[in-house]
């Protein structure tokens, strides 16, 4: 890059020698909380209650999500469900949670359909870089894992769910290994464990900075070899019920424009997160489909949400070059030694603190005019990546972070030689649909797993706990479905009809419909063909 940043880069280089052996600036919990309240986007009051549904007047939602919960369905008013596909289980979502569930439903004689808005594997899972947590060291335990995640989540985690997550971690790593996932190992053959923000001991397993890709491509390969019937480019636009329980879904076949009615004895929502709602104008690290569809669908079926106000802004989103804005720079790069610096080349916070605190600190630094302004009018702070080779020897960054190197290479930026600019990017939906220990939602017939659910991570998730979440709870929901598969019931739109009645009584934003399906910025066309059911 970066003649425009020369002055600031000179300062970064000048302070590097001294910073190498300097401790991180201290921040106690009281001041960390002050920082969060003043600068973290969750605390800026950009939220409101909604007037209809199970959480009416009870809790606050980000404005963008509240609008989607209070608006009409995309289904044409005259649409009547008439069954096109009959299945035992319908999985909605083709990311890590959906794929894990499909594999856990294999071999027990059930018909399983997996419908996904994009293609199998196009998901936030595949984009996860840093790793997956499992307590494998002698000085570690599932309890210590629990304690770290509970403190990181501000004590808002559901302890039952969190205990299940931590207790099942090593078994899950073994399962992934049996499927053929290859995680980085030390020379002695043990797994290489990295620290993550807020882990009290190194606990994060990784496959370079492509951990999610490794897990997703293996899961996808296994699903393609299973009996699961995959329906790619089939987006869920509404859930069906018999007036009481969830009994199926209406899918939109994107290529033919048709609406398809599926009757299912059990439906598993694994539709993922909502970063593409781009709350408060933030860029996002999420994939094209992350528009919170599952939240809307479940809410209309009477399912309550937990901590829907809480989002994770990943501290290190790319700010420059413009083409990479919002894209993730893995947290492991900080655990490998890269420091976060302001325009003066000074550290202002410990890089391995919790994600929400670090994000707030970066926003604060920029607000106080100590950030760096790019030629495209964005602001950020430095991530001093050259420190990695200085600390671990030449070539270390290229070996450990091939993904980062690959993305920047095109712009003639070598992160081993020059720092990169970062700013928080909308990364993860901390809250979501309420589930019990077996992934059951508030409504019978409907299970949920993965990012679409809430409670597990409290109001701030630790690195490496989302890949674990989808593999543990995706499979767990599947086992619960196997154990208590409901009988087949009628498919009607009773709940939607009631919702539409309630909606008439309030004024809502009539120009939008939900689920949103695609990001607003993508200007995609959503047309249902008129002659359905053909």
């Amino acid at each position, binding site marked *: 890059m970066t003649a425009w940043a020369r002055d600031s880069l000179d300062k970064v280089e000048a302070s590097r020698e001294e910073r190498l052996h300097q401790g991180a600036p201290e921040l106690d919990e009281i001041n960390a909380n002050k920082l969060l309240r003043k600068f973290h986007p969750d605390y800026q009051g950009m939220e409101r209650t909604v007037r209809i549904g199970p959480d009416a007047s009870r809790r606050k939602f980000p404005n963008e999500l509240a609008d989607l919960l209070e608006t009409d369905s995309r289904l044409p008013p005259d649409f009547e469900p008439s069954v096109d596909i009959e299945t035992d289980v319908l999985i909605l979502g083709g990311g890590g949670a959906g794929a894990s569930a499909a594999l856990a439903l294999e071999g027990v004689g059930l018909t399983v359909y997996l419908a996904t808005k*994009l*293609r*199998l*594997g*196009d*998901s936030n899972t*595949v*984009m996860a870089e840093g790793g997956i947590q499992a307590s*494998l060291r002698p*000085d*570690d*335990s599932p*309890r*210590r894992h*629990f*304690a*770290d995640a*509970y*403190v990181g989540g*501000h*004590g808002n985690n559901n*302890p039952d769910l969190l*205990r299940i997550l931590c207790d099942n971690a090593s078994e899950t790593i073994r399962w992934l*290994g*049996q*499927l*053929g*996932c*290859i995680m980085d*190992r030390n020379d002695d*053959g*043990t*797994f290489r464990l990295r620290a993550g923000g807020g882990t*009290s001991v190194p606990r994060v397993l990784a*496959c370079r900075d492509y951990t999610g*890709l*490794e897990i997703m*491509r*293996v899961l*996808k*390969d296994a699903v*393609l*070899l299973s009996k699961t019937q995959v329906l790619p480019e089939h987006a869920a636009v509404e859930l069906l019920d018999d007036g009481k329980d969830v009994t199926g879904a209406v899918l939109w076949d994107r290529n033919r424009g048709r609406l398809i009615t599926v009757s299912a004895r059990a439906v598993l929502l694994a539709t993922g997160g909502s970063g593409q709602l781009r709350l408060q104008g933030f860029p996002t*690290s999420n*994939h*094209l489909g992350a528009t919170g569809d599952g939240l809307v669908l479940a809410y209309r079926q009477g399912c309550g949400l937990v901590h829907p106000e809480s989002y994770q802004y990943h501290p290190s989103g790319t700010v420059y*070059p*413009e*083409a990479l804005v919002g894209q993730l720079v893995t947290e492991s790069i900080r655990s490998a030694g890269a420091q976060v610096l302001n325009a003066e080349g000074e550290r202002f916070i410990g890089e391995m603190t919790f994600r929400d605190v670090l994000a707030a600190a970066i926003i604060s630094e920029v607000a106080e005019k100590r950030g760096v302004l790019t030629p*495209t009018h964005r602001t950020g702070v430095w991530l001093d990546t050259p420190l990695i080779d200085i600390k671990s020897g030449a070539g270390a960054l290229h070996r450990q972070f*091939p*993904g980062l190197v*690959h*993305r920047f290479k*095109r712009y003639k930026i070598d992160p081993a030689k020059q720092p990169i600019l970062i700013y928080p990017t909308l990364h993860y939906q901390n809250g979501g649909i309420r589930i019990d220990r077996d992934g059951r939602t508030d409504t019978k017939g409907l299970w949920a797993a993965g990012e679409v659910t809430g409670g597990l991570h409290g109001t701030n998730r630790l690195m490496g706990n989302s890949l674990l979440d989808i593999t543990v709870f995706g499979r767990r929901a599947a086992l619960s479905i196997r154990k208590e598969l409901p009988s087949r019931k009628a498919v009607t739109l009773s709940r939607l009809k009631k919702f539409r009645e309630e909606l008439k009584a309030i004024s809502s934003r009539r120009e939008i419909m939900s689920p949103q399906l*695609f990001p607003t*910025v*993508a*200007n995609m*066309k959503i047309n249902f063909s008129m002659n359905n059911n053909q």
Partner: protein
Amino acid sequence: MKTVEIKIAGKPVRARVGETVIHALWSAGQAESIKTGCVGGVCGACTITVRFPDDRLGGTDLACLCPVEEGMEVFPCSVDAVTPVIPQLDPTPEKLRTAYPTLDRCTKCGSCTTACPMTIPVMDSVLRMRSGQLETVAEDFITCIHCGLCRFVCEDRVQPHNMGMWVRRSIGASQKPIGEQTGSINWEQVEREWVYLTEGNSEQRLDHARRFRERGRIEK
């Protein structure tokens, strides 16, 4: 804002300097013309071919990572997944050959390597598969996003990325699971620790969690 004109499948599109082909399509209301997934270079959905107006070599790319340039022509080139072959424990070149009989049809033309948007040395790796250097093959394909371009351009129907996955999964599944807790576990202590961490109200739990994470045990 400076703009350039590019062509997508023959249709002119105005784009802002610095943005990618995908973002240009979004602004132009033509998002549907190229299949899109992660918008981050790892899902392999948005495969394209690119031609430049000058004498530079064009070729394959990912639309989400490809910055626009004046006069550039883009053609969608989407590749469907194919059903893979079940991996096997303790893989050998013979087992791989049985799984993928087209392995030996490679004519060393190098198209696959040229087509790979992740700069994987695909052809060299196919040759390594033939000679049995499977550990190196697993390493070669560590950045593979399974976009399918190497398979798409192969005239001899070799399926490099599927074979790469077969090798990786076969090796991965054959590795010894390491890092399990060994020795006897004191279950009474484990239960005491769980009670300590999960009892009481959220404030008490938080306090206990803070203390516990310091040393990984109940502090007196």
